């Protein structure tokens, strides 16, 4: 019985087991979902995948703002004639059971016409009739079965963005033309002097020309645009020789067929563009359900409850909050603006803003900052600043957030491209000059042949395939990168800076130490019984570690929110809570969170909560210290300085009490001489993550909030960070090897070109051969070095 798992969600049933219908559930929430599913004929949910459910959270009142039509209208995709369509993001979608039950939503409510899940994006699109149903009822229905939608300010602001499918179209056009041109040019490869071939070759050639026109002017337009942009800013990027090659191929081939000089190079032309686009497509791996651009908007609620005259509650959009308004913040809600506490107890978790992991208590009259999360009960506040003027949101007006890291970084391909272009142009000029004197009629032929054969298709493919494949390998090991450019930047890193709270430490488990007079068995039992009745997070973690098994019945129990709890059995009483609550003076030197215990008004001692470092943190530093300069920036106080110093090498910088701006400035200073990797987790690191060369966000659960960054690393794989860095460096080595390979091909091709013997058939063989062999080589190599991650696993 000890390890019973919940039939619905698969969690350990623990101490509050619920038994229903011969099945065990971990809580009433799970049981309710089971009831809803079975009574609606949806029990197949449990057959598709066992224990696939999610525990529903309490959502009462939280979505009242959806009654406000103006807000609801912004979220709806379609709203006419009593039918509404809405797309909602549901982070808890994770398996085929989820897809099944969400697509059968119409079984749960007749008003729902249809629902469709997009699994990679983790969204659901629901069409429903508005007759006795509404967006709010839909959200509550989804919440009640454990699929609470994630509605943030971001969804409210989002423009109806069209999906960019142009690359697929271009790839389609190029592939279509490539196949047909190959077919049409095939007869001429053999150069048989056959009567009918001679007679019809003009038709074949002009058809090939017709197929090539859209390839040059539509499919490859990005290369022309990029080359033009590069030239205008005086940069010779890799697209310059490509654009030059495509243009030369097209013009030379057209001239060839007009003057009947040969069959032209249309096959090579279309093939080249097709392969190049294929590389681009492969590189474009995106994690649709992850967002790397998040700012405070995806973290803030859409609406808040404003108290009007006579304490009338109304829901308003948060941009409409005005200075002086009184608003209501409920348990677990985010404070959207800087404000003053008027009524109620405030226990604010600022961990997203400051990185400080422990909640702080505030009395009425105190100032509260936007971004904190209220942890205990309802409070009433008066607004001091509007949303855009608040302390946290102002961080986003810093220019680093509008900086584009990709365009500032010169990739390896581009730096090679520059030298390559110069080399090709000089070879072409030298060869042409030679032929001008030797045999002037061949000069133009040689000039164009050099430009055609030197078109760096293989070079341009090396990076997309190597990095694209590495990106996928990283993704399989839970390291999700924004784009392939990040891998190149990672390979250049020489300094690694870590945030402490949430990055090196974990919120999942805490170390609790007891200091003071030993408690008697009776006291322990009473303490445990008292804690059992409390829902405070500290009480729950403390309850978990106390060994006493005896559970008594309390005669009296009081919870003083924000202060502590009190339990009484017979004439014995116990108090647990803050220092002031049990009657002890808080020692000013105290830097970590502590809970004090007094028995019968006699202070016994205190439980000290300490952050636990993630497993393997010292190993990471051990592996990194030889190759990288290390540092830790913490928003916390310096209570754990010594512990950190033991973990880190002696030359590492450890800084405490760092505000978000301080972190950003520190990274900026370092960047004068170094390439900096920043590893962080919360909004407080957002500035530093954006400023650094590569910002990686650590996340316990990749579906929930993480700040804007270049990569998201699942916390369970933090220990592999050194391996990821090493693999990035190795990827660059692979690209360099590919370059050497493709240069060999180019030299062979150039021999034919310079000596004036370049036949279309040679180009048609050499180009695809070089491209395909580079692609195969890059893929095999990355898979080979990627195995290093798998060995780790076993």
């Amino acid at each position: 019985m000890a390890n019973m798992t919940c039939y619905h969600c698969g969690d350990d049933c623990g101490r509050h087991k619920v038994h229903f219908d011969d099945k065990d559930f971990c809580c009433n929430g799970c049981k309710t979902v089971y009831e809803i599913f079975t009574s609606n004929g949806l029990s197949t949910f449990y057959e598709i995948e066992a224990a696939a459910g999610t525990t529903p959270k309490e959502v009462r009142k939280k979505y009242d703002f959806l009654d406000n039509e103006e807000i609801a209208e912004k979220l709806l995709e379609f709203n006419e004639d009593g039918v509404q369509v809405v797309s909602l993001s549901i982070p808890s979608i994770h398996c085929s059971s989820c897809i099944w039950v969400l697509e059968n939503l119409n079984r749960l409510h007749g008003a729902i016409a249809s629902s469709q899940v997009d699994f990679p994006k983790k969204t659901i699109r629901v069409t429903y009739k508005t007759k006795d149903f509404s967006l709010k009822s839909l959200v509550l229905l989804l919440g009640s079965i454990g699929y609470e939608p994630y509605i943030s300010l971001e969804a409210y602001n989002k423009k109806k963005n069209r999906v960019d499918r142009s690359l697929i179209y271009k790839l389609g056009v190029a592939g279509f033309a490539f196949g047909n041109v190959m077919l049409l040019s095939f007869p001429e490869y053999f150069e048989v002097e056959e009567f009918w071939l001679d007679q019809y070759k003009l038709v074949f050639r002009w058809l090939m020309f017709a197929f090539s026109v859209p390839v040059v002017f539509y499919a490859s337009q990005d290369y022309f645009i990029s080359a033009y942009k590069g030239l205008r800013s005086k940069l010779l990027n890799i697209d310059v020789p490509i654009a030059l090659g495509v243009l030369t191929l097209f013009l030379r081939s057209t001239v060839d067929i007009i003057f009947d000089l040969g069959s032209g190079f249309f096959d090579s032309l279309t093939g080249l563009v097709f392969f190049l686009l294929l590389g681009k497509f492969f590189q474009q791996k995106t994690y649709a359900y992850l967002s790397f651009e998040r700012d405070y908007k995806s973290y803030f609620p859409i609406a808040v409850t404003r108290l009007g005259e006579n304490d009338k509650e109304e829901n308003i959009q948060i941009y409409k909050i005005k200075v002086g308004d009184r608003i209501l913040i409920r348990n677990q809600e985010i404070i959207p603006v800087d404000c003053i506490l008027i009524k109620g107890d405030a226990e604010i978790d600022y961990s997203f803003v400051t990185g400080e992991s422990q909640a702080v208590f505030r009395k009425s009259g105190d100032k509260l900052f936007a971004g904190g999360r209220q942890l205990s009960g309802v409070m009433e506040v008066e607004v001091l600043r509007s949303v855009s003027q608040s302390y946290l949101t102002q961080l986003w007006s810093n220019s680093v957030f509008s900086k584009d890291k990709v365009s500032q970084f010169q990739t390896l391909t581009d730096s090679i491209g520059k030298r390559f272009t110069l080399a090709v142009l000089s070879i072409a000029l030298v060869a042409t000059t030679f032929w001008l004197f030797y045999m002037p009629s061949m000069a133009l032929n040689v000039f164009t042949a050099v430009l055609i054969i030197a078109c760096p298709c293989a070079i341009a493919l090396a990076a997309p395939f190597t990095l694209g494949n590495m990106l996928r390998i990283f993704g399989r090991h839970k390291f999700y990168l924004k784009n392939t450019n990040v891998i190149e930047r990672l390979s250049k890193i020489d300094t690694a800076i870590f945030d402490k709270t949430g990055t090196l430490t974990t919120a999942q488990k805490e170390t609790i130490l007891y200091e003071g007079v030993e408690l008697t068995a009776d006291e322990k039992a009473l303490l445990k019984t008292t804690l059992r009745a409390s829902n405070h997070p500290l009480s729950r973690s403390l309850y978990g570690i106390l060994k006493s098994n005896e559970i008594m019945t309390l005669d009296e129990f009081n919870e003083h929110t924000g202060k502590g709890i009190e339990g009484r059995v017979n004439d014995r009483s116990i108090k647990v809570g803050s220092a002031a609550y049990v009657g002890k003076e808080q020692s000013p030197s105290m830097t970590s969170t502590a809970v004090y215990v007094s028995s019968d008004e006699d202070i016994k001692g205190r439980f000290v909560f300490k952050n636990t470092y993630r497993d393997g943190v010292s190993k990471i530093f051990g592996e990194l210290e030889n190759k990288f300069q290390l540092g830790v920036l913490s928003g916390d106080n310096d209570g754990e300085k010594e512990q950190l110093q033991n973990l880190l090498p002696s030359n590492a910088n450890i800084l405490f009490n760092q505000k978000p701006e301080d972190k950003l400035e520190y990274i900026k200073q370092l960047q004068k001489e170094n390439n900096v990797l920043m590893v962080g987790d919360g909004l407080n690191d957002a500035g530093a993550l954006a400023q650094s060369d590569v910002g990686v966000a650590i996340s316990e659960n990749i579906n929930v909030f993480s700040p804007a960054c270049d990569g998201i690393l699942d916390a369970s794989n933090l220990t592999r960070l050194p391996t990821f860095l090493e693999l990035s460096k190795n990827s660059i080595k692979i690209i360099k090897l590919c370059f050497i390979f493709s240069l060999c091909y180019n030299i062979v091709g150039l021999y034919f070109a310079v000596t004036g013997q370049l036949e279309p058939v040679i180009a048609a063989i050499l180009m695809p051969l070089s491209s395909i062999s580079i692609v195969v080589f890059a893929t095999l190599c990355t898979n080979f070095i990627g195995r290093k991650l798998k060995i780790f696993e076993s």
Partner: protein
Amino acid sequence: MSVIYVLLAISITVALAFFAAFVFSVRSGQYDDTYTPSVRMLFEDEIVDDADKTNQDNNLIKQKKSTNQ
């Protein structure tokens, strides 16, 4: 030999028809989500129908209970 014109015309028409089908499929969003349909096609109509009908009233009550918890 002028039959080659006919053949070319036919082959290009067929090719263009497939190309048009491709463009249509991209435009209608079939390439936007390439994963979910692969799962969806494996579902059968597993729903127990009568359970739904007999519990119609029950459902509404449950609904209220669950949404207002």
